[in-house]
């Protein structure tokens, strides 16, 4: 697993900040939306350069993916040597692709009637992210990009598992990348979805999203040891393009299906990573769905107030957080990312249990985690990941 976002660009730096609920990495940007300063989760580190032979793919979003991909270079090389290039597939998710570079290209076009010379359409089209990833890795199997808004990254992992189970691939690099840009910050501003303060999920004072950027990637194989993606649950809302069903039925279906798929009893879940955007509507419906499916004793948290809502990458980054705590569990006890908020419960929300700083899940032989992603257009995906301790 490799990842980059506001908390850092390598797991060893990210883990202590994640477990401390460190919000100090969020920053303020005035260049994204006209006449408004936004608190965002921007990547602080310099991103790697795209190699010259892949220059047509050289945009910030692909550089973001590359920063995560470099962290898994060695295991990917071993998998390529073992299985062969044509048996390795790539499934990536994004909601932005290279839009931030296209904005510059279009401004150049307005001024000169020519697109910026460094711009190539492969940076903007969604499929470009997967093709860049495959080209950089040397993978020759199927490569495609899923774009289902905020569930894209979770779906990419679900698809990777299917490609392996069907025997179409022996290994799949799956993940997602998304970049802060004028289009998404302006669009969410127009929808009145952005918070003036840091997002405050599940609080009575919550008033919207904090946006972010980042990438997370996994090497997915059919090996039966290690951390398993044991459950996938999916649903559509049939409700509204940009608002969830207030009853949370789609969310409930996705969570129940994922647990059934994993053969995991709800009461044995050690930790649930919430979608937890901090918008008034999401938190109403999600707390309702979590309450119905998991009850009020299982520790949950939203990590979006640490890194921002990274949109198309959120499902992959949050899967990476749950993967990381499973990986670092000692004797079956998971260190839990605390729920970052102001601590003021909303009496209108179902009283689900929110993880506090320093908390560890009780030790168990079968450590089960769940991660929710609910997207624009009513597209929901829940992943169950687990690890067994002898």
């Amino acid at each position, binding site marked *: 697993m490799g990842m980059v976002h506001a908390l850092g660009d390598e797991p060893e730096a990210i883990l202590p900040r994640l477990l401390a609920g460190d919000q100090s990495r969020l920053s303020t940007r005035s260049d994204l939306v006209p006449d408004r300063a936004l608190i965002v989760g921007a990547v602080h580190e310099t991103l790697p350069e795209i190699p010259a032979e892949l220059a047509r793919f050289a945009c910030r979003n692909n550089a973001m993916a590359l920063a995560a991909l470099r962290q898994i270079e060695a295991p990917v090389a071993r998998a390529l040597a073992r299985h062969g290039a044509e048996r390795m597939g790539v499934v990536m998710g994004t909601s932005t692709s290279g839009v931030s570079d*296209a904005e510059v290209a279009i401004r150049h076009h307005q001024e000169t009637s020519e*697109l910026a010379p460094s711009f190539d359409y492969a940076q*903007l089209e969604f*499929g470009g992210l997967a093709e860049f990833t495959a080209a950089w890795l040397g993978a020759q199997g199927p490569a495609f990009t899923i774009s289902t808004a905020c569930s894209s990254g979770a779906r990419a992992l679900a698809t990777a598992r299917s490609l392996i189970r069907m025997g179409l691939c022996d290994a799949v690099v799956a993940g997602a990348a998304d970049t802060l840009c004028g289009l998404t910050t*302006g669009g969410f*501003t127009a929808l009145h979805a952005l918070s003036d303060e840091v997002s405050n999920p599940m609080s009575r004072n919550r008033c919207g999203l904090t946006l972010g950027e980042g990438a997370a990637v996994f090497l997915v194989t059919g090996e039966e040891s290690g951390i398993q993606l044991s459950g996938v649950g999916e*649903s559509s809302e049939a409700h509204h393009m940009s608002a969830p069903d207030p009853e949370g039925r789609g969310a409930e279906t996705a969570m129940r299906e994922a647990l059934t798929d994993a053969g995991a009893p709800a009461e044995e879940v050690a930790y649930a990573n919430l979608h937890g955007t901090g918008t008034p509507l999401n938190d109403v419906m999600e707390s309702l769905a979590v309450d119905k499916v998991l009850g009020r004793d299982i520790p949950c948290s939203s990590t979006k107030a640490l890194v921002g809502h990274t949109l198309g990458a959120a499902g992959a980054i949050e899967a990476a957080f749950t993967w990381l705590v499973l990986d670092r569990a000692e004797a079956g006890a998971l260190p839990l990312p605390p729920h970052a908020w102001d601590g003021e419960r909303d009496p209108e929300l179902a009283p689900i249990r929110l993880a506090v700083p320093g908390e560890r899940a009780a030790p168990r032989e079968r450590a089960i985690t769940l991660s929710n992603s609910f997207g624009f257009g009513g597209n929901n995906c829940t992943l169950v990941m687990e690890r067994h301790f002898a």
Partner: protein
Amino acid sequence: MRVVLRRMAAWAPGLETPEAWQGWAAAPAPLRGDGVPDARFLPAMLRRRCTPLSKILLKAAMEACNDEERSQVRTVFSSRHGSINESVGLLENVARAEKLSPAKFSHTVHNAQAGLYSIATGNRQASTSLAAREDSFGCGLLEALGHLERAPDRAVLAVMGDVPLDPVFARLVEEPACAYAVALQLATGGEGPGFTLRVAPNPEPAPVPPWPPAVEFLRHWLVGTERFEIPTPRQRWCFARS
């Protein structure tokens, strides 16, 4: 893995009936880029916001299912360009530091058609929207197979389509510029002819095809080709009827 092709539908300007497509398959010619279907099959509320691509994809999607199937199938919407033409206007707004329209923004997400389809048909099943440059059709089929792996008892509606790219980007892309959609309702069992799909890397250069891969699939299917291969710059998509 063998899949059954339970039902199919396609739409392109001037090719709006199964008979018209049969005639086209017998004497194929490049497709047109202009034209949109009448979208009266959609409620007025949804129709108002529909982009040309949404009308075309939803037209084919609706016709590849009967009333009962529409709300029960899982869906895969695959499009190389998706809503990028609508994004161009928003990108111009951003470049001029102007405010964006919330409705336009909501309809530029790549899964706009999947969302509209779900709302129009009351469909609460799983849905994926994806893109893969020249491999968008083939990868859409792989994703459909993935849904059949996860839920073998449920049919999947795989929809592929595009409209000609906005002129500001079109000169950067070599492809047949046309408006079209192909929708295939696929299942693991049941009545109907089926096919198997194999994919392998393509080491050869692939020339720009006269029409998109989804339409090439349709042509082979309609004229009854037993085995056929659709090459792209990255892959060879090998189909066999079974």
